[in-house]
């Protein structure tokens, strides 16, 4: 019997699937949780100096086998008129630095002089991550009030929001002077993508919950309750994510290839299993039940996603009904279930099915997490000895999807991506209504690859690519993309990213699912809110974790 292949990039790298992505056990926060449990990371709180209103500083110390990391947290008063989730904000309720080691008092003072100012501050090589978070005004005070009365907050209200604070930016990799990723990427605990950022957010989660307990206790020392452990575990950290993340995926083709390739390889391995043993079936149904509970509580004001969630709920019921028979069928029972999902269910449920199939098979797939980083230095190399004709052939082979769009249509070029002078962040402009298209970011890969191919065809076929690029250096970045695409099948989002109908939230969701986000809540077609770590164990539990799977 022939092997079930990986799903085609022509299928996977489309908005319909990117915008339906679900986190899997390969998601970055799940990788971090497993490692922390396996290595029994130990968390203590050596500094907790907060006043009655919860303002002051705190330090969470994390001992891993090789190193110590510290989350330094500052909680400061925030004038209500300055409260905004946008990245352009200038003041926040809380600010954070993930510090490499244990900060002394002088270092804490240095961080306190800078972290609350965020981008306006300067940071050093021991500062690994910089972040800030605002309270969920709706929920934070009601939780504190309930705890101060000695009561637990309403679980349904908690579930409806899913977090007490939400981050509005989490910066890593050298921004504003913090440590470069290259300097720490060799550490096993930080080798997978975004592990330092995930660690910071995981610790921020504990701080937000401890902060609520603290204020309630100071408000009513005699009768205040602490948030119950099961409710703590349900809460995550919110995040508001806008357009800044979208060009990142285009800018890092080899990296995103490795993310998708790992997930698709995991799925293919499971689909090719000859049997579904009892333990794996039990784990699958447990994961399905957990997903049904989560999806049951998933709400959004976005009409399009609301409809998709409604269909997902009914599709998950159908999946649960179909699974016993499919998983008992031989050969390739997991593939039979996936084929059912692909044939009978919507994209949301199909991508949910991907996560559910992978979930019981840690032994088979978890090592793929090690392949999700990328050494992008190699990506700058160009083989200038190949001819223009060979390059054009490679484009025809690897960018066939890019040639499907007719860019003479106005709608196909309706948008352009740029960096805003005021915000210094990527933005999306309307080409026919706004100025600035001449400063467009190189995100329109489909359009530009068509133009590159046309320029190559205008050359004598035998011309070496090096000679061509010497005369026409405007194609140089595309020659690099072409070289990457030849070996990285999932390196490109196979859509027109400047089309009038393009929805950036589809791209954002795909990236956030790889982070491990749940509760996607689009607030427009350009930004959304999510929760990270909701339902995951608290980092303080890791020291006593019996094994990684139990913890995760």
């Amino acid at each position, binding site marked *: 019997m022939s092997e079930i292949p990986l799903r085609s990039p022509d299928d996977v790298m489309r908005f319909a699937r990117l915008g339906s992505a679900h986190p899997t056990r390969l998601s970055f926060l799940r990788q971090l949780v497993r490692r922390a449990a396996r290595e029994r990371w130990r968390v203590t709180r050596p500094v907790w100096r907060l006043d009655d209103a919860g303002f002051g500083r705190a330090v969470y110390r994390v001992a891993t086998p090789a190193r110590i990391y510290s989350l330094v947290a500052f909680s400061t008063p925030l004038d209500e008129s300055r409260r*905004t989730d946008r*990245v352009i904000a200038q003041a926040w309720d809380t600010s954070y630095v993930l510090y490499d080691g244990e900060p002394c008092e002088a270092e804490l003072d240095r961080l306190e002089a800078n972290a609350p100012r965020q981008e306006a501050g300067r940071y050093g090589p021991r500062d690994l991550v910089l972040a800030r978070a605002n309270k969920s005004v709706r929920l934070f005070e009601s939780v504190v009030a309930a705890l101060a009365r000695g009561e637990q907050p309403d679980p349904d209200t908690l579930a409806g929001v899913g977090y007490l604070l939400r981050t509005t930016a989490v910066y890593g990799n050298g921004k504003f002077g913090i440590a470069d*990723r290259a300097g720490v990427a060799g550490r096993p605990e930080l080798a997978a993508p975004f592990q330092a950022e995930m660690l910071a957010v995981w610790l921020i989660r504990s701080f937000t919950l401890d902060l609520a307990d603290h204020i309630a206790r100071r408000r009513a020392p005699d009768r205040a309750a602490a948030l119950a452990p099961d409710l703590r575990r349900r809460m995550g950290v919110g995040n508001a994510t806008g357009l800044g993340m979208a060009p990142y995926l285009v800018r890092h083709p080899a990296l995103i290839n490795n993310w998708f390739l790992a997930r698709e390889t995991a799925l293919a391995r499971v689909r090719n299993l000859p049997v579904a043993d009892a333990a794996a079936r039990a784990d699958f149904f447990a994961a399905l039940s957990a997903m049904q509970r989560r999806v049951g509580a998933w709400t959004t004001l976005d009409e399009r996603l609301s409809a998709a969630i409604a269909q997902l709920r009914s599709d998950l019921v159908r999946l649960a009904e179909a699974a016993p028979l499919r998983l008992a069928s031989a050969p390739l029972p997991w593939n039979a279930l996936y084929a059912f999902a692909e044939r009978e269910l919507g994209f949301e449920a199909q991508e949910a099915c991907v996560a559910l199939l992978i979930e019981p098979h840690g032994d088979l797939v978890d090592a793929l997490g090690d392949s999700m980083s990328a050494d992008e230095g190699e990506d700058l*190399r160009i083989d200038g*000895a190949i001819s223009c004709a060979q390059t054009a052939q490679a484009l025809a082979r690897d960018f066939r999807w890019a040639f499907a769009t007719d860019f003479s249509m106005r709608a196909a070029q309706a948008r352009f991506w740029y960096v805003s002078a005021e915000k210094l962040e990527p*933005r999306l402009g309307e080409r026919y209504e706004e100025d600035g298209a001449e400063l467009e970011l190189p995100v329109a890969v489909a359009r530009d690859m068509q133009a590159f191919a046309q320029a190559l065809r205008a050359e004598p076929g035998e011309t070496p690519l*090096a000679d061509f*690029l010497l005369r026409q250096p405007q194609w*140089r970045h595309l020659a690099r993309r072409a070289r990457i695409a030849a070996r990285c099948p999932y390196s490109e989002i196979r859509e027109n990213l400047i089309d009038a109908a393009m929805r950036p939230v589809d791209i954002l969701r795909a990236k956030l699912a790889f982070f491990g986000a749940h509760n996607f809540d689009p607030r427009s077609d*350009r930004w959304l809110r999510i929760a990270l770590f909701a339902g995951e164990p608290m980092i303080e539990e890791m020291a006593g974790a019996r094994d990684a799977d139990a913890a995760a």
Partner: protein
Amino acid sequence: MIDVSLNEVESLAARVARSCGFSHGLSDDVARAAVRLAAQDRPWGEALERLAREAARFAAPGEPGGRPLCPVRLGAYLLDGGAPDLGAAQVGLPIWLGALVEDAMRASWVGGDLVDAAPVRLERPARTPPPTGTRATISPARRDALLALAHKIYVPESATSRARGAGGGRVDDE
């Protein structure tokens, strides 16, 4: 002096290179070369500012006229496997050529890091790269000058773009 990360060097250099007319691909080459210079504690900031100022007076290999060769376009061509006959041609700001091709070959010239232009001798294989640091420094004034250059590739807000927005709501009321 300001202590900066190498990622900041890379990002700033790419934007400055774009602002003075280099293509996206060549700007990535400049960025990588700037990181090399910075990590070797060489004058990356001054070299970058001069590149931005002088790029327009350089010629690409093969172009007519008596202008110095552009170190970026020449370096990229060499990296791609091109084999130009340099002879005694003057190469503008050869520090950039040396940094661009460092992995593949050794470039040497007379006059030091910040010489305006000089004939360059190329040898393969590359020399053993010098030890590199993990941080860089730059003066506040030079950083401001480079940030001002980088600003040229940003798009000012318009009434339309402001109205469309991109991030969260103005007031977080939830």
